[in-house]
Every structure is written in structure tokens, then in C-alpha cells.
């Protein structure tokens, strides 16, 4: 159940980046342009502030229970029965999130890349690789990010750089045309992605000096916000808010208008390949967290035995969740903000308050 290794604060931040960004970058710009129009980037910043609250809660909890995972201190705070139930809620939520990510991934692949191939095939293959990685533990995963992170960052930079001839920054004006209400709507949508930073409460237990969690949370969150703002602004610069909202995968559309010199006319296939790397990290991380959480709740010593079956289950669930990509969008727009508010903000807040009231802390270790 417990990981043997530790990860560095930097790796924790990078993992946090991967825990949010890969799917957010694909789905969010379009949804934000739909909700917040020109001010989509303001919505990202608003959501970052909200996620900052979650990060603060996570940090305070981690300071009270250093080297304990979220699932462990649930029980320490709420007692065995209520604690197990709360931990189970988290496990379930992470599991559902994993399934949604898998479905988003396969839906994107089918829609944008290989329409003739069944979506289930993409889910199965990526989860198979994810299971292999998750069984090798968090440390291996963290080290994988060291290779995929530069690729993703460089590629986003290249796309944005080579899209500059197509950009017109005038598209951003007028700022706050319809007041703050659309921005708030966009913030809610963006929140459901950015609130996923709560995942650091689980694997943050393996960050070696627990105090360094503050740095990983801050840098991770800022990194997410930075790239998300950049990509959102990029799509609005290129397409304007109406057309950005019309493109289902706006960031992918951004990659589609880019041509690298005269040789590579379209680089979206590379975008796809590198993005697959990012999504792979995200899926694996959630799979690992779910397995770890379930092992904690059920009192198993090893999470590894659970990974394979959980992976298979998540593939099945992911294909039961939605009918089509429109339902995913609807879910992301209407349902997820409320649901994530419950388990990403309110539940951890409750844990913190109860811990504070009952004076629970484990700082001895």
C-alpha cells in the first residue's frame, strides 16, 4: 500500500501539472469561450484563485498529517466508520474522474484522428499501458514526466509561436463586455478542471520534506494557470470567441492551423502523439491514486493487485458514462462544476475544520 520511494517537490509539481492540464487544454478553451466569450482568460484566472483555496486546504491538511495520504487521514480525522466512508467518496470520485478522462481521450481520438477505429480500442490500449506504469509505482511515473514535460512544453510553445501570424490580439477586446456574470460562468467550468489539484493530497504524502508541498502546490498551480491562459488566449486570438466556442477541440484546431515552414504542413499528428503522452500520465496517476485509495480503505498491504482490475473497470465505466461527445460537453458544462465543488472543495474543507476542532494532528513522524 505504501510507496517505498519518495518523490521530489519538483516532481510533485510536475505531476500536478499533468494531473490537470492534458484534458483541460483540449476541452477548456472551447467551453470557456462559450461561457465567458472574450474574457475566457479571466475565467481561468478566477478558477486559479478558487483552486488556490483548495491548494491551501490541502497544504494545511498535509501539515497536520505529514506523510499521510488523504485516504489515511480521513480515518484519523473522522474516525473509522465515517472516515472510511469519506475516503470511499474520494476513491469513487477519483475513479469517476479517471473514467471521464479515458472517455474524453478515446472520444477525441475517434473524432479527430481515426474515425474508423472503435473508441473502445483506444481506451483499452492506453489503459493497458497505464496499468503497466501504475504497477511500477509513483516514482517511475514521476520520472516518466521528466521526458514528457519538455516535449509538451516545447510543443505548446511551437504551436503558439507559429500561430502568431494568424493571431489578432484585438479579439480580446472589449474586456468585460457583459460584466462579471459570464466570467463567473466560465470560472465555474474552469474550476471543475483546476480543482483537480486536490489530487496532491493523496500522492503528496510521498513528497520528501512535507513542508515543500507549499512550493509544489504553488508552482504546479501557477504552471497550470499559465499554460491554460496561454492556450485559451491563443485560441481566442486566432479564432475569435465565437469560432473558438464552435470548435469542439479548440486547442487542437489551433495546432491544425499551424504549418512549420514548408516542410510539415500540418503538425496536428505530432500534437496528438505528444498529447497522448500527457494524457497517459494523467490516466496513470489517477489509476494509481484510485488503487492506492482502495487499498487503504480495504486495508490491503499492496495496491498493485488492484491496478489491473481497476483499469479494466474504468474502461468499462468510461464507455457507460456517455453516449457521445456532446454529452461530455454538457457534463463538463453543467454537472461537473457542482460535483467537483462538493468533493474537491467542500469535503476537504470539512476534513480540515473537523481536524481543527478535534485537534487532530500527527506531526511526530
Amino acid at each position, binding site marked *: 500500500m505504501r510507496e517505498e520511494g519518495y518523490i*521530489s517537490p519538483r516532481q510533485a509539481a510536475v505531476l500536478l501539472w499533468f494531473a490537470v492540464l492534458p484534458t483541460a487544454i483540449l476541452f477548456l478553451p472551447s467551453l470557456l469561450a462559450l461561457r465567458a466569450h472574450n474574457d475566457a482568460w479571466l475565467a481561468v484566472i478566477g478558477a486559479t484563485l478558487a483552486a488556490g483555496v483548495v491548494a491551501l486546504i490541502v497544504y494545511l491538511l498535509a501539515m497536520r498529517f505529514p506523510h499521510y495520504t488523504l485516504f489515511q487521514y480521513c480515518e484519523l480525522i473522522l474516525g473509522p466508520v465515517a472516515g472510511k466512508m469519506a475516503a470511499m467518496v474520494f476513491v469513487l470520485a477519483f475513479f469517476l474522474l479517471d473514467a471521464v478522462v479515458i472517455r474524453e481521450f478515446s472520444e477525441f481520438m475517434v473524432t479527430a484522428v481515426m474515425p474508423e477505429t472503435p473508441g473502445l480500442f483506444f481506451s483499452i490500449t492506453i489503459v493497458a499501458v497505464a496499468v503497466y506504469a501504475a504497477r511500477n509505482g509513483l516514482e517511475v511515473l514521476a*520520472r516518466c514526466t521528466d521526458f514528457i514535460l519538455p516535449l509538451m512544453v516545447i510543443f505548446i510553445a511551437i504551436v503558439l509561436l507559429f500561430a502568431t501570424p494568424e493571431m489578432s490580439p484585438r479579439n480580446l477586446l472589449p474586456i468585460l463586455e457583459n460584466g462579471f456574470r459570464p466570467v463567473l460562468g466560465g470560472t465555474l467550468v474552469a474550476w471543475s478542471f483546476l480543482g483537480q489539484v486536490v489530487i496532491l493530497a493523496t500522492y503528496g504524502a510521498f513528497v520528501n520534506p512535507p513542508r515543500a508541498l507549499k512550493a509544489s502546490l504553488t508552482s504546479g498551480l501557477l504552471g497550470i494557470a499559465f499554460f491554460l491562459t496561454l492556450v485559451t488566449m491563443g485560441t481566442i486570438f486566432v479564432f475569435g470567441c465565437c469560432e473558438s466556442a464552435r470548435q469542439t477541440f479548440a486547442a487542437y484546431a489551433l495546432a491544425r492551423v499551424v504549418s512549420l515552414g514548408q516542410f510539415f*504542413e500540418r503538425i496536428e*499528428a505530432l500534437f496528438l*502523439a505528444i498529447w*497522448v503522452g500527457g494524457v497517459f500520465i494523467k490516466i496513470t496517476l489517477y489509476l494509481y491514486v484510485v488503487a492506492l485509495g482502495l487499498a487503504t480503505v480495504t486495508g490491503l498491504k499492496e495496491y498493485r493487485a488492484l491496478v489491473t482490475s481497476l483499469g479494466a473497470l474504468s474502461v468499462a465505466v468510461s464507455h457507460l458514462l456517455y453516449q457521445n461527445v456532446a454529452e461530455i460537453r454538457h457534463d463538463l458544462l453543467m454537472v461537473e462544476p457542482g460535483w467537483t465543488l462538493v468533493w474537491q472543495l467542500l469535503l476537504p474543507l470539512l476534513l480540515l475544520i473537523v481536524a481543527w476542532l478535534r485537534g487532530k494532528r500527527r506531526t511526530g513522524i
Partner: protein
Amino acid sequence: MPGPYRKPLRAAFFRRQQPSGQQDRKGRSGGGKAQKMLYPTLEEYRLTAELKLNLEQLHVIFAKCCDVVHRDFYLGQVLKVGIIYIDGLADKKLVEDTLVRTLQQGSPQLARELADRSRDVTTVMEKIMPMTDVAVVDNMASLVKHLLEGDTVLLLEGYNKALALSTRSWEHRAIEEPVAESVVRGPRESFIESLRANTALIRRRLKTPSLKMETICLGRYTMTNVVITYLEDLVDPMVLREVRRRLERIQIDGILESAYIEELIEDNPSSPFPQIDHTERPDKVVAALLEGRVGILVDNTPFALIVPTLFIQFIQSCEDYYERYYLSSFLRLARFAALNIALLLPAAYVAVSTFHQEMLPTNLLIRLASQREGIPFPAVIEALIMELSFELLREAGVRLPRQVGQAVSIVGALVIGEAAVSAGLVSPAMVIVVALTGISSFALPSFAMAITLRLLRFIILILAGTLGFYGIMLGLLVILVHLNTLRSFGVPYLAPVTPWNFSDFKDVLVRTPRWAMNSRPSQIGYRDPVRQGAGLKPTPPASSNPRPGEGKS
């Protein structure tokens, strides 16, 4: 400087690897003297005080061994002694000219003195022996062992101990230029099949008592001597202990090449990646020792092993350090490109041409399409056929004598390639792709890594042919995860890149100048990280460029 989280990790690793510490302690107390028992054990034989009896036993042991030479004579015409050695292993000239003559001409008085049973056999050594490397042997097993290693054994009448005189000298190759790792600039010496010569090559480069060489004997029949060599001040004791432990658990009939040992002491035996580097260059071994690594020399092979090994070592060539650093860095980058091309080019070509045609400029697409028109195979099959035939050609060329090998390559390249294209079986673009891939795989300095890439290339090619870039990415992800699980003697395989260590990047993508390589690799040489003094960067002489503020030179 070790990273903050590294130590507990490695400790955990070793804890998992060592179920019982007892075995380890025993191995360490044995140290370098850990000698395997001879096989068969010869337990029924005893050394007695009676020369005749001893000789009879030896005749039984070495029955039907025509290369064993036995000769009796009298020391100073009084004391009967027997000399036994193996022809070809012992220096016959030395035995005849020096040993036999000295002993025969010894004074009878001394001989009589020696014949007195109360004297110890060491007296013989002290009084008359014309040689320095002499061991006293008190049992038959070790006597036989000495004999088999080329020593000359001297048995004396009336003594139940024998003397083993080191006369080892056998025909071996001269020290030549390295074949597999030749350089333009740099030492031209290569290891040879003689262990002693090899250790001498290392010792000559490291004139320090902290260069340690522990011997261990492996192989029931071959009794191969294996030397663990390291610099005592630099080596990571954890790694050293692990090397000893893994070597000592080897139970095998014979070791013919260091590859035997390599496969028996790897961390992950089912991995396709080589986890232990091997070299035939003494300077490379010494450079590794100076970084805090451990070298393993094996008798009868010119290839030494270096542990722990990191992935990047397979891209570094020793000439990188002998040429100017700009060129070395450029070549290093070129090798990274070659690594990627060797692994990915055919797969990328197949993926682009069958899945992602939109990536190509129209003109190129049309050109490729017109070339492929009428080709009977799908692109992926075409690539597989070409790659396979390329591998066959290479194999044929490698195994044949050099002159015939050239003929094979001419036939292969010209006749088959050209004919296949003009017959319309293969598109010219594919020939270019395969050729470029082949060249790239030759550009890697390490043959072992090139072989691995060749194998993985086929898997990635099949993935690309079925799933396009997504398939390539899946394959790469599996490889990435696998590489991250690998460790070489506790050190992460991808070490300076991940776990990230910026100061070690001086020797990864580029080779920084010598004066900037101030520290040893942090994962390996962390016991003494400082390699050289700071500020070694040469400057013009002070007089020609005077500065007002600096008083000292």
C-alpha cells in the same frame, strides 16, 4: 551531492534485494580471497611426506594428460625433489634455466640441512629458491589448482608441503589496437585475453594503492579468475557490496566471456536494454573507476565490464573526451539524433504515409504516391521486408571473412536494392529510409545498444503500421516506463535526466570542457564529488593581460 531523496530509496532497494544479510557478511569477510573449491574436489588425496606417494597420486589425478610434465632430480645431489608443471602454461625456459639449474647446483651441505625433517619448508624458500612469487601448498587440491594455473610445483622428499612457484607464462596475443572501439586520437592499447596483462594495463594508469583488485574464481570447470577493481576512496560501498554479492552467488560450470557474468548479474534480466557496459579499452575502464564505478575484469576475454551503467554511457564515446569539446558536443547531439532515427524512422515513415498523409507537403505526397504506384505490398510490409533483408545482409557481412564480407555488401546494396526498385517491388523512398536507419544504427558507439534498438525498431514499426503515430507513442511510452523501472546496481538507469540533476548534464547532451567538469556523477561518485580544483579554466599569462585589481597571478 546525493539528492535528498536518493538515499532512502537505495536503501530500500537493497533491502528488497537482500533477504538475508548473513550471506552478505560471509561474502565480505571472505573478501577478495574468496576461492571456489576445485571441481572435482579431490578430497580423497592427501599430501604426504613421502615424495613417491605424492607423485603417484598426481599421476592418478593427471592420468591421460599429456601436457603435464614431471621431472625428478636431486637438490644438491642429496635431496630428492620433483617438479611438475604444465607444458604451455609454465615458462619452460625459466624452469629449466633458472629453477632446475639453481637447485641442482645447490651445495650438498644445504641439501643435507634441508633433508633434516625438523626444518620447515619455508626454509627452502628462504635459502635457495631463485624465485619471488612462491606459495606454500599444504593440500592436494590447491596444489592441483596452482598447477592448472601455470605454476610449477616443487615437491620435496620428506616434506608434506609443496612449493608452488609462479612460472605462469603462456602464449597470448600481444596488446594491440582495440578492434571494436578504435579512436583517431587516444591510447591505442586494448585489453587482451590475459587477465594479468589487463590488470597491469589498469595499474599502469592508476599508480595508487587505493586501486584495489579483488580476485574471485568462478566456474566449476573453467576456474576463471574474475577481478573486481575499484578505487577505494571513490567507490560507493553499497555498489561494491552488491557487486561482490552478485558475483559470489554465481554457480556455473564455465565462464567463457564477460557476457556470461553480465547476464548473471544484471538487475533486470528480462529487459532488452543492456544494463552493464563493456569495453576493451583500459582508458575507458580507468575513466569509469575515476568516476567511482567498479570494473570487472574476466580472464580469457578482452572485454571488461563497468558497473553501474547508465543509459547515456551507450551514447558517450571515449573519443568525446579526447577531441575538442565543441566537436564532441556536436557529435553527441548527432548521436542522439541517430538514436532516434535508428529507432523511429521507418515507423514514422510508415505512420505518415499510411495514416497521416496530411502532414506531408503536397508535392512530396504526390512524389511518394507515384513511387508507390504498382508496389504490391502495403507500406508496413514493405518496410518489414526491407528491414529484414537489411538485417540479413548485415549478418552475412559480419560473419564472413572480411574480403567476402565486402562482396556481400556490394551484392546486397547494389544488386538487391537496385533490382528491387527497378522491378517495382520496393519504392525508392523506402530504400532511402532503410539505408538511413542502417547508417544511424552504425553511428551509435555501442553495439549492444544498437542491437536493442534494432529489435525495438521492428516492434515500433508494427505498431506504427497498425495505429500510426498513436501506435508509435504507445510503444515509446512502454519503453519509457520500462527504462524508468530499470536500475543498474541501485542507480536509476536514466540517471542524470531523471532523477533530474542539472550538474550532471555537463556530460549528457553536450560534453563540457575539461575545466568545467568539476564534479563526479552525483549518483555514482558522491563519496568524493569534487573531481578537480575550481578555476582550472586556462587564462592568458598575467603579464600580457594585466588587470589592475588582481594581485595574485
